[in-house]
């Protein structure tokens, strides 16, 4: 017999001896099955499943979960990870934008104002934008309050006043969310066509969007930066909307475990979304001359359009000279 086959034989023999020993039930001295035979053990159960569930007599079957240690992990996420990462991301973005303002300054219209106005956004487009924007600001502030309020505001306001504020903020957050979802649907429907990535966007990115070389990069109605904001807002908006709705209607297709996940997704995406929108607000107001009026009055200066959206400007001019009906798209 060769050496390896002897080893296998020895292993089989060891198993044959060991298996009955494991399977044999422990017996009490009188021969009856020991009361602790195969008793369930908490640590073993928790190694197999993330939570321990059983049968319950009361009508509320959701209460059949005995222990879910994941609650402590969610606590850690909420009190450590979210507080730290949230503060770093949002304050970090503010610092970055402050630096951008100090270094780059306000991006002026190079050729100065022409005095000639071009229609950029219709009244309905502006309504959709401001519906989304105003609800976003309310949702952002009330959302930050429920995470950071107890650190920032509670010591200033005292517990009773802060509790009233937080209660009010909770309802604002819960109901304004529907305005945000409506606004998001509107702006996506209105602008998705003009936000589809095109060849010219690669050139815009290669030229650093005109930020680096100080030379204006080519763009259609929306430049690659605006398109990036659009798609990020769409993705983040959809993620916070879905996760938010799940939290707004507890136990519709969710349980505590999935609500914890929904809350983590909601919080992480929302923090990133706030940082993104801070940058969007900066470039649309302080950061660039002539940009705000597009969403303010709906009309931009012709020179601004020429510099920032040259292809769109050419298209607009063509539409005006030929007439809207026969205009050809040069996007």
């Amino acid at each position, binding site marked *: 017999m060769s050496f390896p086959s002897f080893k296998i034989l020895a292993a089989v023999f060891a198993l044959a001896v060991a298996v009955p020993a494991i399977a044999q039930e422990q017996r009490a001295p009188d021969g009856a099955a020991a009361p602790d035979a195969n008793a369930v053990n908490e640590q073993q159960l928790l190694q197999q499943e993330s939570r321990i569930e059983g*049968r319950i007599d*009361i009508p509320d079957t959701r209460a059949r979960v*005995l*222990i879910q240690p994941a609650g402590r992990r*969610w606590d850690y996420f909420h009190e450590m990870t979210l507080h730290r990462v949230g503060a770093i991301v949002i304050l970090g973005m503010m610092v970055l934008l402050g630096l951008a303002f100090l270094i780059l300054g306000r991006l002026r219209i190079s050729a100065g104002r022409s005095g000639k106005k071009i229609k950029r956004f219709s009244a309905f487009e502006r309504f959709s934008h401001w519906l989304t924007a105003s609800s976003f600001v309310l949702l952002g502030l009330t959302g930050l309050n429920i995470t950071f309020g107890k650190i920032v505001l509670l010591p200033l306001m005292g*517990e009773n006043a802060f509790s009233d504020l*937080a209660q009010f903020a909770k309802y604002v957050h819960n109901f304004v969310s529907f305005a945000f979802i409506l606004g998001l649907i509107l702006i996506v429907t209105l602008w998705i066509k003009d936000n589809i990535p095109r060849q010219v966007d690669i050139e815009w990115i290669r030229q650093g969007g005109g930020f680096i070389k100080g030379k204006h990069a080519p763009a259609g109605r929306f430049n690659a930066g605006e398109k990036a904001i659009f798609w990020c807002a769409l993705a983040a908006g959809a993620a916070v909307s879905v996760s938010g709705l799940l939290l707004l209607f507890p136990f519709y297709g969710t349980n505590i475990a999935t609500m914890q996940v929904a809350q983590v997704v909601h919080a992480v995406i929302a923090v990133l979304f706030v940082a993104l929108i801070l940058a969007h607000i900066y470039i649309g107001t302080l950061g660039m001359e002539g940009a705000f009026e597009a969403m303010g009055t709906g009309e931009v200066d012709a020179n601004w359009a020429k510099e920032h959206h040259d292809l769109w400007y050419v298209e607009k001019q063509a539409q005006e000279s030929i007439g809207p009906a026969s205009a050809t798209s040069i996007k």
Partner: protein
Amino acid sequence: MARMKFLCDADRCIDCNACVTACKNENEVPWGINRRRVITINDGKPGERSVSMACMHCTDAPCAAVCPVSCIFSTDDGVVLHSKDLCIGCGYCFYACPFGAPQYPKLGNFGSRGKMDKCTYCAGGGGTEVSGSIEEYRKYGANRLAQGKLPLCAEMCSTKSLLAGDGEIIAEIYKERVLKRGYGSGAWGWMTAYKEGIAS
């Protein structure tokens, strides 16, 4: 000062639900809320065990940590209490609790949960009400601890499965039981709640 804990000796629990009933009656708990419940693991199979569970009054209570208005706190006795005046019904404690203790009087669509309710260890409430007053009783239930009594669920447990009292004393009682009878399925929830088991 004593550090109050609960311990359910699952090898003694017979799933009679007297603790559940006692709690509901003593504290006049609102409809739909069960501060204490009994869960049977491996129902009908060998090794089946029933465990009576309520708020475990955790060490470093996760509910207290996540509360956005900081209305939950631990007393000197280690009992976790909350103020229903400050609670905004956001549901965070209920995501964080490992034992499913926080509950709300309403279902909670659109965040309309109402004020959180949970086991108070029969120690009244964490609000501004005078200890032992009728106002405190209406909002939070009995304050037996102030009268030198333990939670009623444990006091009237027919098999003395559910133990309440100073953590060290009830751990000692449990250890002695395990030693005498030669087995024990462990102090359920202790590792999660108090970050320590009972070595037996």
